[in-house]
């Protein structure tokens, strides 16, 4: 089930919340677990087994680690941790990467090993990372293991963030699993985040995606058309993924959870290092804490530091998909981050921020062309076309037409990427009259956005989130 659907918004969610707030507090985790399993198994019921086995391994290993700790069996503790990680990661590798490996082995060796065509369980990359971080934290004794299976299972498969993040660390919500309350302020903030997230997805991301598809179907591609499609995809990806994260955080808030932020206006960054502090924060931090730092981080010899960065970014790219373009995409950012760090170390002075924005956007837009195009030869053609190679005309009537047709959407998209709205609301809130106006305007805007998003869902087709494939 996807958040941006009539089924979720008007059937599943009202029913889940109604029951949640009517039943005694002690039953709520159990109810959320049932609801989450229904949510997950809605369109792929057969794959529920994979999720359940992962949860049971994580739960059992957590308890086992505690036993080893109490009995001071350090060696067994390490063996247990690695066994659990291999099982969890093995499941991820099997379901997500096995055909990629077979294809490449066939390509290199000339063999003809048949592909397994395994169906990818939705959200496997997210929940596997949650379980691994839980086990690592228990191993490092940063957290005590969860003894209640229902609470543990609910933490892993809570429908709010199960299929597309944010990756919530156990230590971030361990306390909330047992005791949490939903205050009026939380519910209000939650509703606001859900509606804004939904609008980002349905009113912006999907329409920008429509533009990208239209440009791909151009009879005669143009340089401007390719650039516009690349910009549109950059905006689409942000609104799609951050919209989902907003909805997840908002839903969590209504249920009394405080999930970490996943996006902080990444396109307002002035360097790529800054960009990655703002984009998919929960994933970046996961790789930092569980791969980069254990490898030695930057407190080691320069060559090891470079190795660490490249390895982390190769894995980051590969996490996004079993295709070479994702690996290239990860390494592309890894190399840029190394260069930035080296340049920054030499030049201590802060650079020009306008130039910084332009630089970031250029790197990010080209990066997302790498991200989008899984066919490497097509990728070369597209990048070449953007640079004016391949004999493409700069612009034609078709490009102008669609630029006019989607111009307002681009404008809204660009404004929506930067914290102008937040700044404006802040300014209004400072005035007494402004606060009163906002008190009336806020619910009007929410209702308007909810109705508009619903209208686009009713009159549209299927709206899967882009990050579901990860």
């Amino acid at each position: 089930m996807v958040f941006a659907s009539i089924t979720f918004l008007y059937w599943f969610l009202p029913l889940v919340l109604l029951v949640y707030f009517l039943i005694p507090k002690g039953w709520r985790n159990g109810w959320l677990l049932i609801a989450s399993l229904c949510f997950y198994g809605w369109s792929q019921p057969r794959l529920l087994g994979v999720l359940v086995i992962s949860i049971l391994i994580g739960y059992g290993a957590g308890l086992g680690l505690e036993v080893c700790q109490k009995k001071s069996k350090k060696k067994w503790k390490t063996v247990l941790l690695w066994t659990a990680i291999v099982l969890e990661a093995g499941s991820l590798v099997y379901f997500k990467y096995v055909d990629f490996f077979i294809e490449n082995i066939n390509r290199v060796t000339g063999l003809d090993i048949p592909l397994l065509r395994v169906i990818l369980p939705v959200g496997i990359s997210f929940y596997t990372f949650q379980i691994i971080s839980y086990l690592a934290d228990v191993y490092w004794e940063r957290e005590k293991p969860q003894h209640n299976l229902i609470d543990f299972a609910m933490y892993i498969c809570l429908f709010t963030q199960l299929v597309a993040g944010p990756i919530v660390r156990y230590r971030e919500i361990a306390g909330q699993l047992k005791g949490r309350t939903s205050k009026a302020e939380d519910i209000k903030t939650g509703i606001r985040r859900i509606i804004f997230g939904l609008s980002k997805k349905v009113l912006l991301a999907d329409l920008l995606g429509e533009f990208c598809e239209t440009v791909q179907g151009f009879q005669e591609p143009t340089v401007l058309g390719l650039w516009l499609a690349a910009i549109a995809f950059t905006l689409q990806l942000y609104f799609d993924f951050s919209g989902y994260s907003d909805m997840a955080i908002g839903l969590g808030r209504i249920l009394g959870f405080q999930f970490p932020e996943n996006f902080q206006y990444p396109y307002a960054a002035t360097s790529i290092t800054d960009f990655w502090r703002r984009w998919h924060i929960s994933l970046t931090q996961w790789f930092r804490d569980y791969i980069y730092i254990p490898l030695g981080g930057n407190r080691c010899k320069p060559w090891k530091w470079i190795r660490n960065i490249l390895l982390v970014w190769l894995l980051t790219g590969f996490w996004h998909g079993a295709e070479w373009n994702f690996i290239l995409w990860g390494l592309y950012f890894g190399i840029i981050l190394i260069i930035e760090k080296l340049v920054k170390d030499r030049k201590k002075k802060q650079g020009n921020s306008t130039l910084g924005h332009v630089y970031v956007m250029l790197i990010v837009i080209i990066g997302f062309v790498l991200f989008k195009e899984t066919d490497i030869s097509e990728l070369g053609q597209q990048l070449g076309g953007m640079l004016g190679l391949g004999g493409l005309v700069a612009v034609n009537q078709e490009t102008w037409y669609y630029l006019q047709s989607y111009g307002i959407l681009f404008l809204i998209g660009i404004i929506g990427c930067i914290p102008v709205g937040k700044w404006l609301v802040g300014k209004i809130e400072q005035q007494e009259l402004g606060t009163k106006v906002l008190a009336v305007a806020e619910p009007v805007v929410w209702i308007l956005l909810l109705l508009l998003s619903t209208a686009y869902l009713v009159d549209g087709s299927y709206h899967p989130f882009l990050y579901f494939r990860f």
Partner: protein
Amino acid sequence: MNKKEASIKNRIQILIILLVWGMLALLCWFLPRQELSEGERRKLAQFPTISWSSIMKGSYAEKFEEAATDQFPMRETVRSIRAVTDIYGFRKKDVHGIYLAEGYLAESLYPLRESSVHNAGEKCESLYQEWLAGTDTSVYAAIIPDKGYYLSEENGYLTPDYEQMKTIMEEEFPEAEWIPIEDTLSIEDYYATDSHWRQEQLEETANRLLDAMGGEALQGLEQKQALEEFHGVYAGQSALPVRGEPMYYLTNDVLEQCQVHHVENGKTLGIYEEEKLTGRDPYEFFLSGSTAIAMIENPQCTTGRELVVFRDSFGSSMVPLLVQSYSRVTVIDTRYVNPELIGDYVELENQDVLFLYSTLLLNNSETMR
């Protein structure tokens, strides 16, 4: 604002939004289910019956999602909200490929799909080779321009290369005598909300065709109103809130005495079928819509001349205007009949044969057989 005031404000705001959201949810759950969408002219998906196997296959979820979307309360109004936001909010130039220019809704035919036009031309040529080559038939052809021909370029919309379309057809089907009719038409000759032309505006075009085929010019036709409020196919597809328009038809004694035999269902009806005016597509009033083969007998014409028309839906309103010069007119729509079977219904030997297709079909000719 102090803490207490802020808390009251929060509660009121939550109440308002939950009221709206909750009401919509309750309507989704309890409102009676709808069978048809009049605007979209299609059956709406219904909620599936639950079964273990359908749940395990995932088909229950899929069908439920479709039904939940299709059965959303006030569906037509909700679709209109989207259309209005697209056009007036986002200033998009079209909704689902349909644009509004000079008060007319029109479909964007851009880009020209040359392969489709070639396919249409080849189909016509193949019909000729199969049934007409070596006979004494006189073969004519005409292309009916869609509304975009008159609207798109002047209003800044993308325009397919109509000249190229014409050239391809003429090259693919050189045996036909091509009759140009685009200069006999203008945008006023089409319905504002539908793809089709208005029969009461077609006298000049019909005379052009009749003149080329050696028929007599039209005379003595009376204009009557068939429907007061006609909402065409584009109104439903785009969901833009547009006014309906009257639908007229032309008739006289000759047409009123004609009988139309529909091979598909064995029925014999008049030229105009009033029952269709209350059906899914009121344009089917003309010649009962697009049927596989229809044979029109004109008892008032004793010349023995016959006409065979290969056509699409535009032909439904044009053919009645061609009837007066012929004793019998056979109307064939090869989208609904296998061309190999034509010989079972009509013996082609010395008739006038007219191929009358619209640019809409030529650019999307996959349905032609």
